[in-house]
């Protein structure tokens, strides 16, 4: 039965996340926007609390750690909080939807602080997706960052040049030796683990690209610098050099074989099908914050929205609010759809990218228009609107830029390969 309402089962989760967003994130928003690179220590206590709730199964989906294809199969027999399925139809509302709903709330609070939540990094998603039980034992529950991008390989992640060479000179302790440069590693200096993408053989293309878990204190992992950014300043972005960085052979995630064709790489890219809706969710959270605050400021000037009368008959600002809210709603529903599809194991690559593309551009557009509608209040630092406008822009870039999403979508719709539609 078609229903696009958020199930009541998730109300508790949403309320909890909303409280964290309001009482922990919002109150520290401006502070860490100004104090770039300073560690938001207020998050430690919160992280401990979330760990506790995760352990007791009370809160699920505060971060990316919960998503992933295998996570849904409830191999340990535990259903996440709020996850439900309808036995007569098999319809599931599971971890992907729960994670998304939590993230929207948290991003409404502050997307920079959300991104630097201890033990909630994107690396967790990669580990959760492919780790063996033994690896889960070693890496589970740790703060894991993700290192994909290189100076010469951004959206074109197949072009990465960081190499991994297997060294079996000590048969008892075979190791991979990693060499290269990684940039834009979110929380790279704060995390305990970094999942590094590297190629086993540069001549063999995508199939040779593997991910490796590197401990932050590995001496071969050299911090070059922390970026100064337009927004999300609470979240550190680190650049590293890998200099003969040795990791145990057991730190390779997934199959060690060089896959023919695109198999292996496709597997790695599938992580994005689960994480793209989450980043779309962040965009939806930020955009909602902008819309809510703008609506408050406009109502102080006597402008309110009437959902009955045609927008053309209302004040321009009210009509603009309706227009923005409509696009926001479209983005939100596309994102819920993508997460719902993941929960129900329907192939969602197309829909995940549609959600990300729409939400990314809508958030930036809404944030900038809200700044304009609110005039000097919108542009000044007295309000958070200008900060949200700076924060929002990254959401149309990372986890696949707008243009990359459109490529993914168009290739699927038109049945084109990446060599045909470049």
């Amino acid at each position, binding site marked *: *039965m*078609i*229903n*696009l*309402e*958020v*199930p*009541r*089962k998730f109300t508790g989760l949403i309320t909890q996340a909303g409280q964290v967003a309001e009482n922990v994130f919002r109150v520290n928003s401006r502070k860490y926007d100004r104090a770039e690179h300073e560690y938001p220590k207020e998050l430690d206590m919160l992280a401990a609390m979330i760990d506790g709730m995760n352990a007791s199964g009370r809160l699920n989906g505060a971060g990316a750690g919960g998503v992933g294809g295998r996570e849904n199969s409830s191999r340990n027999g535990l259903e996440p909080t709020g996850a*439900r*399925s*309808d036995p007569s*139809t098999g*319809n*599931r*509302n599971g971890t992907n*939807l729960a994670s998304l709903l939590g993230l929207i709330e948290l991003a409404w609070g502050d997307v920079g602080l959300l991104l630097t939540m201890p033990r909630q990094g994107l690396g967790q998603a990669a580990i959760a997706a492919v780790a063996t039980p033994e690896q889960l034992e070693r890496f589970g529950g740790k703060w894991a960052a993700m290192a994909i991008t290189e100076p010469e390989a951004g959206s074109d992640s197949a072009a990465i040049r960081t190499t991994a060479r297997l060294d079996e000179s000590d048969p008892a302790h075979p190791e991979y030796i990693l060499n290269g440069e990684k940039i834009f590693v979110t929380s790279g200096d704060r995390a305990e683990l970094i999942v590094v993408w590297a190629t086993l053989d540069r001549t063999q293309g995508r199939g040779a690209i593997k991910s490796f878990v590197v401990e932050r204190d590995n001496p071969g992992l050299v911090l070059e610098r922390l970026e100064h950014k337009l927004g999300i300043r609470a979240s550190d972005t680190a650049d590293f050099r890998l200099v003969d960085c040795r990791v145990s052979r057991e730190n390779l995630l997934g199959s060690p074989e060089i896959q023919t064709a695109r198999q292996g790489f496709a597997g790695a890219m599938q992580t994005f099908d689960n994480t793209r809706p989450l980043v779309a969710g962040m965009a939806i959270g930020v955009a909602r914050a902008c819309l809510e605050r703008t609506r408050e400021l406009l109502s102080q000037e006597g402008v309110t929205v009437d*959902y*009955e*009368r*045609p*927008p*053309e*008959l209302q004040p321009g600002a009210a009509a603009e609010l*309706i*227009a923005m*809210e*409509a*696009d926001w*709603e*479209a*983005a939100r*529903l*596309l994102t*819920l*759809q993508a997460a*719902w599809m993941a929960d129900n194991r329907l192939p969602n690559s197309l*829909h995940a990218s*549609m959600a990300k*593309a*729409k939400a990314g551009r809508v958030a930036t557009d809404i944030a900038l228009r809200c700044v304009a509608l609110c005039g000097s209040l919108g542009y000044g630092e007295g309000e958070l609107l200008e900060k949200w406008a700076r924060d929002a822009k990254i959401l149309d870039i990372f986890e696949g830029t707008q*243009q990359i999403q*459109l*490529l993914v*979508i*168009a*290739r699927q*719709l*038109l*049945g*084109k390969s990446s060599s*045909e*539609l*470049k």
Partner: protein
Amino acid sequence: MPTQQQNLAGRGMAAGLKVINWLAGSELVDRVGLREPAQRLIYTGSKRTTRATTVAGRTFQAATRLGRPARQASGAAADLFDLTPTDEQHLLTEAIRDFALAELRPAAAAADRACVTPPELLEQASELGVTMIGVPEELGGAVDGRSAVTTVLMAEALAYGDAGIAVACLAATGVATAVSLWGDAEQQSTYLHEFVGEHPPAAALALMEPRALFDPFAPATVARRSDRGFVLRGVKSLVPRAAADELFVVGATLDDRPALFVIEAGTDGLSTEPEPAMGLRAAATGRVILEDVEVDPGALLGDGDPSVYAEAVHFGRLGWCAIASGTCRAVLDYVKEYVNDRVAFGEPISHRQAIAFTVANIAIELEGLRLATLRAASRVDQGLPFAREVTLARRLASQHAASIGSDGVQLLGGHGYTTEHPVERWYRDLRATGLLEGGLVI
């Protein structure tokens, strides 16, 4: 249009341009081969204002009298987020979609030119149950529960074939739904059995009025109370199949509040005239002119409750969103094939990002519009407030559906501008979906 303020030279110029336009127009008519007398007649007929008094199509008489009005049960609140249609919805949508592709799409171009939907298509649609979808089972309807979602899916599927014909098919459905939802026992007994019969009447909800910035909640058409009931005066605009309609539900201001009246064709003072528009021409839109039309007290629908009127407005808007969604899907599927087939500079034009990204954006905005429409409909079914959701969906239809229509033509370039391809028709049809009020009731 020349105005009084213009000087003589200006007026002469305007008149000259009119003649040139007319000449160019008739040359064009010749060139594209509109030479058959019938077609030429339609061409001139639609240009000339021909007012016709409405003729009573049939006598609406109660078959069996109801003690109390019958209503379709509304659905229960749903537990989980779900985008899977029920089996019933799935089967119905499939059947309608097959019908739309096999019958409506091939007939669309001719129906657009002729400004009329062939009667046999209307008959086939009503055989599929299109007209009676909103009628309670107790009164001969086919569906046991009220489902705006089902009607949205149906309208989408019809519009996938052709928007204009879909509107022609669905206009009567709207009136049947309106009488089912808001009619009293008397109104239901009088009218509904006809809509579930073998030859359902032509009928339409007339809300729109011919003025810029029209506010459906403040119709200029006025109803005043009289000894015999009500007297209505005003003009309704772009009413589907106005000339053929046997029954109207008309919006008018009564005691400073908008209300709905059920009025039969043939009532004294009621006339129609053709009002062909940019698109939806197969729906044979026309004006309904009410010159002191006197009706019984029983003509007032829903006791004149303004919330009933508001629902009618929202259900109309929802209908146009569904039409937009189905038509946009037709555009998407058509351009996908075209840009893959069309070769320029040695390869399919779909290999260019400028082309491919346009297609991707059509898909994104269409999907957003569709989900917003379904959400609004499912809220109707669950008894939740829906005004905001309908408004958001309508806004998406107003903005994105029109630009999808435009992109459809653009992707085909000059070919898209000719009637050799349906995209120019969709361009015209999709401009309507965010601006029309009434006509449909979901």
